[in-house]
């Protein structure tokens, strides 16, 4: 460990990071404080605490972006997508690791190559596919696109993990008469639980916060997700900061709560998600 004993140097460093942390929090202060002020007060002094609390900003924001509806949309899309990603991703990865062949090697290579492909390189033709398959303005269509788009990273994460899972348990189960499906669902799935948590968290964050795909696929307002609803709100009410800031606070609230509750897992997920395969 590089940790040192407590001394003056450490104290000075501590003061430095605390100041930096305050700086990091300052944007939240500005947004929250001003989201509770009437419009005129925001323009007069953006740094002060609110003199009167304009709670009506929030009721207006909830109504204007149809908050309950878009929150549900985001929840539905994210939950179904990550659930399916975990199932198909883990099945594919396990098969690739345990059944080495030309086919699975090529498949894995294709997944890795796809990870460095920027979305813009497939965006334009993808929209043609999406239109022809009538995915436009459907949640199912968007979820299917996530299945394709997020599979490479999911497989990459599981692949690295499954490689380190010992074969003995699976072999023992085979001798005991388990078939392939039983081995996968009863033996393998429990063994890779910790990576499943990582995949769930990382993909949930990515899909929850994704903006471009919903923008391209969902134009109908009542299908919008949170980032999309916030974006179209800003397009309509440029510089109405009183409602806009309340909208931003509402928009961040769910994911911030999610993070604070599951912080331990999020941090662990980031750590294991960044290990090179």
């Amino acid at each position, binding site marked *: 460990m590089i940790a040192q004993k407590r001394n003056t140097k450490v104290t000075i460093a501590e003061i430095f990071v605390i100041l930096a942390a305050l700086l990091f929090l300052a944007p939240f202060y500005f947004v929250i404080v001003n989201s509770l002020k009437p419009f005129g007060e925001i323009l007069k002094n953006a740094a002060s605490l609110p003199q009167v609390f304009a709670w009506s900003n929030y009721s207006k924001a909830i109504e204007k972006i149809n908050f309950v509806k878009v929150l549900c949309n985001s929840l539905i899309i994210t939950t179904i997508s990550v659930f399916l990603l975990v199932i198909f991703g883990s099945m594919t990865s396990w098969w690739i690791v345990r059944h080495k062949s030309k086919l699975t090697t090529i*498949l894995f290579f294709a997944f890795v190559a796809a990870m460095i492909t*920027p979305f813009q*390189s497939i965006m334009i033709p993808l929209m043609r596919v999406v239109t022809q398959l009538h995915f436009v303005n459907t949640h199912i269509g968007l979820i299917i696109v996530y299945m394709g788009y997020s599979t490479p990273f999911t497989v990459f994460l599981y692949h690295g993990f499954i490689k380190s899972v010992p074969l003995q348990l699976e072999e023992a189960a085979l001798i005991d008469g388990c078939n392939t499906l039983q081995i996968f669902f009863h033996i393998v799935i429990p063994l890779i639980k910790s990576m499943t948590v990582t995949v769930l968290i990382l993909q949930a964050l990515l899909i929850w916060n994704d903006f471009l795909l919903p923008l391209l696929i969902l134009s109908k307002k009542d299908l919008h997700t949170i980032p999309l609803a916030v974006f179209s709100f800003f397009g309509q009410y440029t510089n109405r900061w009183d409602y806009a800031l309340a909208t931003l606070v509402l928009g961040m609230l769910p994911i911030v709560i999610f993070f604070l509750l599951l912080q331990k897992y999020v941090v662990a997920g980031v750590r294991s998600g960044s290990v090179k395969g």
Partner: protein
Amino acid sequence: MTLVKKTGLTLLFIGPASIFFILIIAYPFFSGIYYSFTEWNGVNAKPIWVGMRNFIEIFKEDSQFFASFWFTVRFTVTTLILTNVLAFAFALILIQPIKSRGPLRTVFFLPNVIGGVLLGFIWRFILVNGFGTIGELTNLQVFMLPWLGSPETGFWGIVIVYTWRSVGYLMIIYIAHLLNIDTHLLEAAKIDGASSFGMFSKIILPLSMSAITVCLFLVLSWTFKSFDIVLSLTAGGPFRSTETVALNIYYEAFSYSNFGIGSAKSLIYFILVGGVTMLQVRFTKSREVEV
């Protein structure tokens, strides 16, 4: 296992993911290469083969595309350095016996979980209204600049937001890495009379090259593809001076309906991103030290 059963199982296990992958990534990617050589102005209209014309047009006439590239490169390099230096410094400090280190790690990581569109709007408010107020209160020149109103302030605005968002993520990776470094090496160096700076530059830094590779790679892939934060913060303005490549391609295709030229641009973009990524990984890997 019979051959039929084996084939059935293979299809069951790798089938669904492969079909989605081919449909959503592989097929669009390869048809995109074809579209780069066509003129195509609508999702339903038929593309017309035009050979190299799109590429010639981009290289000859589209100075904005190269301006976008140059902007993306400058912004990527600046952010790469800033985020990694800050994240490494925070990590070095937050592994010390500091009482508040738990909450501090949370604070630094927090911006990372919020979506890019929201971050962009938050900072549009801070830079335009918040900075104005701070300027009036403190009389500091920096805060009174026309934030987001000039190419320079637009550039730095985007750098600030990306740094704010990315530092916590990198810090987590650096902390995990630093906690794994063998103490014996450092103790030995201390006994030999090495200074703090000497230990940092001769031992800690070389041993951290693997973590640095990961972090450089991550920031590179975020900033080079940056779209949503830029769209909500500056929308590429003023006068398209903060337009990233991703934004440029998006506008080309979905605002001007030039799908052929858009596809050609994304092919150029893909080749550059792929090339830089491979170079970068190879370069940093060659400097890794194994103990």
